[in-house]
């Protein structure tokens, strides 16, 4: 099994073998962050550009740490402070970055499909760090990596995803990844936050949180984005917490060893109680640590594949 893609755009297009290759490569990279000198020379001389059209701290920092632990040079571009403000198109921005002889663009964009479009128009590697409501592949990979580390396997697991499924690229990438690896996925949300036709992705749909927690080996709790609602938010938050919030009382009815995940940042008292977020079931901070190993693996694999493609062209 070898990796032949210059880009990582989503989990939908990946095979089971490719997913497993990323996970096992990440396992090897995890050790690097435990060393006294947390650095290997694998991407020495490569330049990674973090191109973020949406605010993000944890994903950007995680990619930056991952790239630096591989000895790459990292440049951060945030759209608010760049020529994007002056009306430059995405493809022009991409070609300019390419002209700087960068090697990898890590992009977060508010439009679904932006990463695919960029990847088609540049020769350097593109890693999707979240595009609109479409996919956020490295987040799902780190969720799956954490599950596999905790439970030893993915096949046959019951995983519930709770929260704003409709607007969540994290949910979509998780569903693709988990179902390809043989897990059974349940999504749970208020009816208006469940997109029509989601069953076609091979998931069970419910709006009953207790049902979603029942039998689940793990629950992945998504962030509610009430801040977009302005002032009507507060009563809605309380109502959401009452109906869907994860509390220790609710967990008492679930499996004793249920795992609670959250991609962060957590709204304490909305998606889950503080007691749950800091409790024994929570692996939220381990997800952050694992995110670095997973992103190191992805940066390494796409860079290798792209290098190889260039060499083959020179030979032919």
């Amino acid at each position, binding site marked *: 099994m070898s990796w032949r893609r210059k880009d990582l755009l989503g989990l939908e297009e990946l095979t089971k073998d490719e997913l497993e290759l990323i996970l*096992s490569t990440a396992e090897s990279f995890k*050790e*690097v962050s435990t*060393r006294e000198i947390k*650095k290997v020379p694998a991407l020495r001389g490569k330049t990674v550009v973090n191109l973020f059209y949406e605010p993000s701290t944890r994903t950007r920092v995680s990619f930056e740490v991952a790239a630096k632990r591989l000895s790459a040079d990292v440049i951060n571009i945030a759209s608010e402070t760049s020529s994007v403000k002056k009306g430059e198109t995405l493809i022009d921005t991409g070609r300019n970055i390419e002209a700087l002889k960068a090697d990898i663009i890590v992009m977060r964009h508010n439009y679904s499909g932006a990463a695919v479009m960029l990847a088609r128009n540049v020769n350097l590697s593109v890693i999707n760090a979240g595009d609109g409501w479409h996919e956020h592949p490295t987040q799902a990979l780190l969720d799956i990596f954490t599950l596999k580390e905790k439970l030893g396997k993915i096949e046959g697991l019951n995983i519930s995803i709770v929260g704003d499924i409709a607007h969540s690229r994290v949910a979509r990438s998780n569903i693709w990844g988990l179902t390809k690896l043989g897990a059974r996925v349940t999504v749970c949300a208020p009816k208006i936050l469940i997109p029509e036709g989601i069953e076609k992705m091979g998931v069970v749909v419910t709006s009953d949180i207790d049902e979603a927690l029942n039998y689940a080996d793990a629950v992945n709790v998504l962030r509610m984005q009430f801040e977009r609602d302005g002032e009507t938010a507060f009563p809605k938050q309380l109502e959401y917490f009452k109906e869907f919030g994860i509390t220790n009382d609710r967990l008492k009815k679930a499996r004793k060893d249920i795992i609670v995940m959250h991609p962060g940042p957590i709204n304490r008292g909305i998606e889950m109680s503080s007691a749950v977020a800091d409790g024994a079931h929570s692996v939220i901070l381990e997800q952050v640590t694992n995110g670095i190993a997973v992103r190191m693996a992805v940066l*390494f694999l796409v860079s290798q594949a792209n290098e*190889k493609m260039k060499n083959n062209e020179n030979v032919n």
Partner: protein
Amino acid sequence: MKEKAKVLDKDSITRIVMRISHEIVEKNKGVQGLCLVGIRNRGVYLAKRLAACIKNIEGADILTGALDITLYRDDLALASGQPLVRKTEIDFDINGKSLVLVDDVLYTGRTIRAALDALVDFGRPKSIQLAVLVDRGHRELPIRADYAGKNIPTSKDETVEVRLEETDSVDEVVIIEKGQR
């Protein structure tokens, strides 16, 4: 691809491991501060065999680790197949230790160069020595083995394949001739 000759069988490999174990103990005047680090994959099994053998001689447990050098290679882009990144497991402090690096075949010396770079990231051993089962010549770097099981003169068109029971269900070393090109 065809097998040209079997150069070592199970018994000779066992004798070599025993001899090198004695040499390691002799050269280091005992096992004080001694540790073994095998280079993945087969170096790790050889390191474990050496550790077991040294334990028989000296009665002491020897710290043993595994090193993956993929991320330190200088030919990452050139390698034909895509190298798999495997785990490095060195669960002890190598600072101040007499460290013996173990690999199956010594050839160009580039793997050892990468391993030395990797080890330096883990700390500063008192000394690093090199033990290999087979030295086949054709060095491209100023590197030599402190302990060599067998010197086997080869041509560059041949490959030396070490098979160990732990992964290959047989103990032997064979020379393989690459097909006519």
